[in-house]
Each structure stands twice: as C-alpha cells, then as structure tokens.
C-alpha cells in the first residue's frame, strides 16, 4: 500500500530525523502500552499489585464464562446496531431531502452539522437533563401527556433508549455530511436519464441513488459501529454510568470500570485485547471493501 512517488530526495539521515518525533510518541504511547495490555491479559495480579502470576488464557476463559461480560457483549451489540441503523436511516433521509432542495441546501447543512462540535460528555449531560425522571422537561411531557412512567434510573430499557437517542443525535451530522457529499457526487445525467425512462422520485432514489451510495453506506456503517463501541463512553458516563445495574454497560465501559474501579487488571487487560481484535477486524474489513469500491 505504500504507493510510490517517482521523484524522491536522497539523504541518509534526514528521513530518520523527520520521523523521530512521531516514532517516539507512538512507540511510547501506543506500541508499548498495547504490548503491555497483551502481556497483562495473560497475567493476574492481586489487588495490591505486589505479585504477578502467569495464567495464560485463563483471563479469557473467565471472560467467556462470566455472565456479566457476556451481558455486556449483548448490550454493546444491541446498542451499536440501534445507533448505526437509526443514525444512518435518519441522516440518509435528511441528506436525500437536502440534496433535493434547490435553494438553501447549504443553510440546512450549516444548521445540521454543528452537533459534531458538541462533546459526547456534554451531549450525555444534556439528554440526561431533558429526560431526567423528576425534572426533565421531556419526561414531564411524556408522563403528563402520554401517561408514560419514564425512569431511566430504574428501567434498563429506558436507560438504553436514552443513550441511543443521545448517541444518534450526536452522530447525525457526521453521517449527514457524508451522505450529502455522496449524493451530490452522483452525476445529474443518471438521474435525468431515469426520469426520462419514467421513474418517479421514490423509485429513482431506491433504484439509482441508493445503490450508488453503497460505498458511503458501507463506510458509515463501519464508522458508526466503531463510534458506538468507543466514542460513546462519555455519553454513558455522563448520563447513566452504565446503569441501572449494568444495563447500559457497554464493553468499553466495562474495561474502564473493571480496570479502574474494580481494579481487576488482568480481566480488564483481557477485555482490552478482545476489543482490539474487534476493532482491527472492523478496520481491515472496511479497508478491504472500500478499496474494492462496492459498486454495481
């Protein structure tokens, strides 16, 4: 993948000097810790960290047998599917309409992209505030107008709904941008040809534009899943802290909790390694498929 430039400079020492800062930083703060995580996942230390035992794959076996971990896996899977599906569907809808609008599409774009700037932590706080059982304005409306007894502090499903909404809200702008760019890059002549062939807008969208968007859709699918796995930590910590109980403790949250609150270093490291494997797989899939350009 290291594509070649025909023209290069010749120097024995300069490239090394140029690479040194980045190499140093990633050696110390990426490769060394990643290696350590791998090592620790194969060890178990006591609560005081004074003795270390080599336990091989036992930490991983424990994970597999731990109902809490498996529950967390399920929670993460549900969460990411919901966030990805709803996020993509909503932003596709908005992008499709924004593409259609002749005047003002740039204004809509401006108005829809700024949630990208909002910190996940802040998003978590905002949504928590709005949906807070006793003081939240939306909860109030739900209970008085719809008779819905809303309580994310007690009800696991409500809590999950809350974090899904917050996560989707934040991610809409990112997805929207890509879908809009993708739609705008489809040659107008294709759509005109379809119209002349008699296809109406709804049909045109599904038979021409959507298939041509497939690389973008696939790309966003992977991005959204990775986002749901990792970038949502702050949302969860700010709103439900993984609760009630462990109903919203996604995998990355569990890594944090076990490593820093429960101080189970071996288990936490093993979980990190599993997460690493998942991310690497997802990224490899993304690069392989994107490079091949899913087209019809």
């Amino acid at each position, binding site marked *: 993948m*290291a594509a070649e430039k025909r023209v290069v400079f010749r120097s024995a020492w300069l490239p090394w000097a140029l690479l040194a800062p980045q190499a140093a930083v990633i050696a110390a703060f990426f490769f060394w810790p990643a290696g350590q995580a791998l090592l620790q996942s194969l060890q178990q230390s006591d609560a005081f960290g004074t003795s270390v035992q080599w336990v091989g794959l036992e930490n991983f076996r424990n994970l597999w047998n731990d109902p809490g971990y498996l529950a967390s896996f399920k929670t993460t899977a549900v969460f990411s599917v919901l966030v990805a599906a709803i996020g993509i569907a909503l932003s596709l809808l908005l992008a499709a309409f924004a593409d259609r609008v002749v005047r003002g599409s740039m204004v809509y774009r401006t108005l829809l992209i700024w949630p990208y700037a909002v910190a996940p932590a802040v998003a978590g706080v*905002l949504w928590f505030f709005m949906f807070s059982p006793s003081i939240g304005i939306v909860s109030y409306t739900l209970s008085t107008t719809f008779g819905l007894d809303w309580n994310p502090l007690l009800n696991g499903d409500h809590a999950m709904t809350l974090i899904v909404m917050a996560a989707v809200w934040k991610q809409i702008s990112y997805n929207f941008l890509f879908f809009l760019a993708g739609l705008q890059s489809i040659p107008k002549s294709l759509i005109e040809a379809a119209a002349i062939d008699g296809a109406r807008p709804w049909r045109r969208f599904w038979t021409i534009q959507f298939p041509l968007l497939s690389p973008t859709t696939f790309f966003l699918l992977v991005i959204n899943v990775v986002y749901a796995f990792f970038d949502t930590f702050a949302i969860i910590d700010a709103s439900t802290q993984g609760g009630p109980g462990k109903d919203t403790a996604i995998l990355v949250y569990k890594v944090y909790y076990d490593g820093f609150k429960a101080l189970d*270093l071996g288990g936490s490291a093993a979980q990190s390694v599993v997460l690493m494997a998942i991310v690497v797989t997802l*990224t490899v899939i993304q690069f392989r498929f994107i490079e091949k350009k899913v087209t019809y």
Partner: protein
Amino acid sequence: MVERRPTLGILAHVVLLLGVLIVAFPVYVTFVASTHTAAEVVQAPMPLTPGPHLVDNYLRALQGGGQGAGSTASVGRMMFVSLVSALIIALGKIAISLLSAFAIVYFRFPLRNLFFWAIFVTLMLPVEVRIGPTYKVVADLGMLNTYAGLTVPLIASATATFLFRQFFLTVPDELVEAARIDGAGPMRFFKDVLVPLSMTSVAALFVIQFIYGWNQYLWPLLVTTDESMYPVVIGIKRMIAGGEAQNEWNIVMATAMLAMLPPALVVLLMQKWFVKGLVDAEK
C-alpha cells in the same frame, strides 16, 4: 431537481426543518435552563422561554464556588485547560504528521515500509482500547495532572499522517523536479512549496483535531485528579452528583453552553475546509 413536484419540494423543506428543530431542541432547552434560577429549573415543567438570569448564571459558572452538590470548580479555569489541551493536540499532531508524511512519501530508506505500516496500525486502535497500560506509562513518566499527560498520548494516532500522505501523493512530481533544478534541497522544498500547498488540509485537520481534543473525556478522566487540571467536559460531569434536585442545574446548563461554544465557533467559521477535509479524508 428533475421535474416540478411542488409537494415533494415542500415535504423536503418540512422534513429538513423538523430535522433542524430536533437537532437544535436539546441545545435550546439547555440555553433556556441556563437563564433561570436553580429552583425554577428543578420545578417541572421547566419554563420554555429564556429567563432574566443569564449574566448572573454565566458569571457564577465562570468563577466557580457555588452551592451545588457536585464539583464547584471555576469553569473559566476549566475552559482554559480545555483550550490549551485542544490547541496542543491539534497543532502538535499537525506538525509531527507533516514531517512524518514528508519522510515517508519523498524519501527512500530502509525500513520505510515498516514505519508506514506501524503508523497505519495506530489508526486502528483508539485510546479507549489501551487505557490501562497507557495510564501506567504516563504515571511512570510523572505526567499525571500535566498538560503533557493530557495531550501527548493522544498525538500518537496517525490520522493526520495518513491524510497528509494522501495529499502529498497528489502533488505533481514536476514541482519537485523544478525545485531541484532551482537548487532547493529537501527541507527548502518542504518549507517553500509543500507546506504552503497543504494549507487546506491543515485547516481541515485543525478543525477536526481541535474538536477531538476539546471533547476528550475518558483519557482526561484517568490522568487528572486535581480540579485545576480538569478540562471543561470532565468538569460538567462532575458537577452532577447524587440525586437530581441537589444540583444547581442552571449553572450546569450554563457550563454546558460555555463548553459547546468554542468548538461550535471553530466548526462554523471553518465550515468549508472542515467539510472538505472530512469527506476527502476517507477517500
């Protein structure tokens, strides 16, 4: 727009406006909450129009020391910490990456492919996956509660290097040859030609990295225990403690507004480059 379908056009506007409203709603609520007293906010339903306490609340937030149940650190200080961290991360990453991408694209040297792949690998693992051991490294180096600890580990990923590499590959070879004939050595070429040509990418990356740095949560949570080194996104979370009624929600909301302001400004002001950078980056 291929045919005249006025109903569809109207529907489009309706849907888009609805989208804009839904997107804006949480922030509107936040803004309103930040202009009332704590008691008014906590009493459901909260009023839906702004109140008169805007200046009071924001001043109190900035100075800190209120009566909330959670943290009462000065938001002003936290904004400063966030600003410095975000700038260091954005500028640091850009500087390091320009140099690395230059080395990888324009030179041949042994282990070049190894470096390329090593840098590429860092794209794949966000900091959340290596928190434990990275924390230990930072602690061992005595970097807890410092700007260095907050920023350097986050400069380790190579998104920027990759982007610059993609860009450098599109710079015509003839420019290098012309520069060579003109007598420019590699660093001269870098300074006089390559960097000026990269400015659009630099601008786009700056927006993305600034927001990334400003919004960092998990990492600062781990490496700062001292209130004076909290970035504002951590500060907000810490303000909410215990049950809902005991927090000074109006101050919390004011803090939220303040926390959203700088990144939103950066995005809006540099919107053009930002969109271009995001969309081009993934090609």
